[in-house]
């Protein structure tokens, strides 16, 4: 049970442009059966067959967990990324047959919470779409603060306001609206849990303020999938399988290892779950660590790398794969 999760054969049932940057994709099972039940905060890994290249990107499920006739994800176009989002926007049309993973939840609600305080930035809104739907159905107590660049880029802001009214607060960067974080964090009832999903700067800021205000770390939950960044190509030797591979500019190290026919375990492909952690046997050069899994000490040691998001620059790198 090493490599990833069970797969689901799906067909794209709808593609809906949401705004200038974000498009929503709907998936149904090809056999017409119901999809597996999931919990709010879960993601699926979408396999993209783009010519010779296979990309596997994680996206949060944003539909209601009560509706398993279809899964929906929202993809923000990243014009300078590795091309996964561009592939989704340009090449994925209704009727296309695709393969996705079973849902995996690394950003689960803590069901002990008396209240759920949610902070979203930009496309980080997607897991909260599912979590708010789940909580609303159970009569759960939540409050959502959502920061977006402009009203027209406020993905699903109108939907959320319509569904949950005053439980949703919106902040627009172009109007200089800023969440009063200290006040929001200081005025919550005991037993509140805090959830944050958005750009890494925002996550860091919220975690720091919460810690300074005395929030126990067990009550602060965050999700940051670091999308793999493109970078200069580099060569790697896989010592166990005896292969030498090249990692292209637009490819992640994990994808290059897989393309060589080696299958390390993975779940999130975003540097948070720890499954693909790989030992470094030797190196001559510099690591570009982008993960949220290894400790700073691990990063400094040069003994470990998370191949899903991290890269390397230098003369030689030998991995235990």
């Amino acid at each position, binding site marked *: 049970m090493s490599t990833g999760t069970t797969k689901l054969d799906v067909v794209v049932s709808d593609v809906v442009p949401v705004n200038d940057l974000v498009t929503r994709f709907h998936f149904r099972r090809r056999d017409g059966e119901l999809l597996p039940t999931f919990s709010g905060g879960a993601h699926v890994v979408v396999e993209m067959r783009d010519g010779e290249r296979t990309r596997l990107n994680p996206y949060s499920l944003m539909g209601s967990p009560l509706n398993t006739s279809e899964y929906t994800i929202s993809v923000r176009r990243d014009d300078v990324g590795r091309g996964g989002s561009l592939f989704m926007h340009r090449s994925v049309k209704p009727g296309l047959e695709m393969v996705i993973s079973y849902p995996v939840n690394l950003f689960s609600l803590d069901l002990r919470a008396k209240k759920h305080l949610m902070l979203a930035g930009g496309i980080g809104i997607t897991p909260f779409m599912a979590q708010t739907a789940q909580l609303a159905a159970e009569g759960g107590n939540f409050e959502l603060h959502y920061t977006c660049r402009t009203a027209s880029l406020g993905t699903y802001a109108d939907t959320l306001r319509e569904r949950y009214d005053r439980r949703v607060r919106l902040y627009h960067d172009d109007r200089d609206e800023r969440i009063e974080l200290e006040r929001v964090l200081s005025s919550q009832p005991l037993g509140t849990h805090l959830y944050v999903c958005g750009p890494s700067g925002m996550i860091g800021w919220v975690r720091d303020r919460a810690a300074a205000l005395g929030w126990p770390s067990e009550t602060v939950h965050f999700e940051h999938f670091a999308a793999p960044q493109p970078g200069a190509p580099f060569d790697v030797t896989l010592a166990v399988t005896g292969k030498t591979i090249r990692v292209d500019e637009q490819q992640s190290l994990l994808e290059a290892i897989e393309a060589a026919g080696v299958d390390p375990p993975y779940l999130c492909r975003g540097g948070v*779950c720890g*499954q693909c952690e790989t030992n470094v046997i030797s190196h001559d050069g510099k690591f570009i660590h982008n993960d949220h899994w290894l400790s700073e000490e691990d990063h400094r040691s040069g003994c470990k790398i998370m191949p899903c998001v991290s890269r390397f620059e230098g003369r030689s790198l030998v991995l235990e794969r």
Partner: protein
Amino acid sequence: MGITFRKETFRDDFSFKNSPEHIRRFPFPFHEDSYMYAVNIEPHVVGPKGSVLENLIDVDEHYVAEMQDRALVLAEDPLRCQSLPHMTLAGWDLLELLMEQQALGYPEHFTLTREGDHWRWINRPLGIDDTFTFGDVSTLPYGPMEYITRQSQGDFCILDQRDGNLWMDAGMVTTQADWSLDFDIGMNFFEWHAPVPLAHEKGIFIRALKFLTNIQQGKPARRLNWTMTINPRLDTSPENYHKWGPDRTTVTPENVGDKVHLRVELQSFWRLPRSNGIVFPIRCYLIKMDELVTQPKWARRLHRVIRDLPEELATYKGLTRYRPTLVEWLSKLDDGSATSPGFGPD
């Protein structure tokens, strides 16, 4: 077709027995002639026909008697079934899992019909035919976990996953090998395993926790564990130690074959979809020595395992007092010849 359910007891006159077919399907836990802890976890996939793995949730000839015994235990001690307030959703997850699996594996005994949230559950062996609204606790006579685990063989622990750990926050535990849900409720994985000897030093629990927290939906896993019990008693709980503890002084060379039972737990681990919790069914199988030694390979191997078991493990499993008597009895069935690899009888 279908299973013929035995009328038998796990207390008082101890009339529990295995039929010859059930002896052969017994999940003998030793694949070689010695035993030491290992992280012996494997994917929980369907196994050969006629084995306990033929279905992922096994129902056998002891089903009705076990459910009657559970009802007796609960009547005396309601704290054997507990669910902390945040675990109700996980209870519904478990109800769905057990109804689906039992109906799938044994359609002649169980039927589940679903129209949206409107469910009908028919359990013919226990004479139950209930309709209810999935997710609405007011439509069932018990909470969802208690309702379905009064109709499912084995103990069930539901573990909440948070803070990188697993927490024993709900369970139905009436067939346990000397541990207490009431004592362990609310504890995390390291806390409830604290009494186990040797394994901590080997780092086994750290690796096991890492594995369990990564169990994925649709990919359950399993392992076997074992101990021994005097008399076929399902409820060997600390709460009732005064009832079963003294049994261990009653083993004599004459009654070993009837009194001493190998107790095997088939433990499986499943990710629950709505709650993101893990359910840990612990299914107990008992076999008396007289039944076990009808398979000569098992007799030889069990002799060698018990004879060579490290002292700490023998103490932890509570075998100390009757081990010499048992080893002496088994030695007469061990001619020293080789045993074939693997678990099954020859």
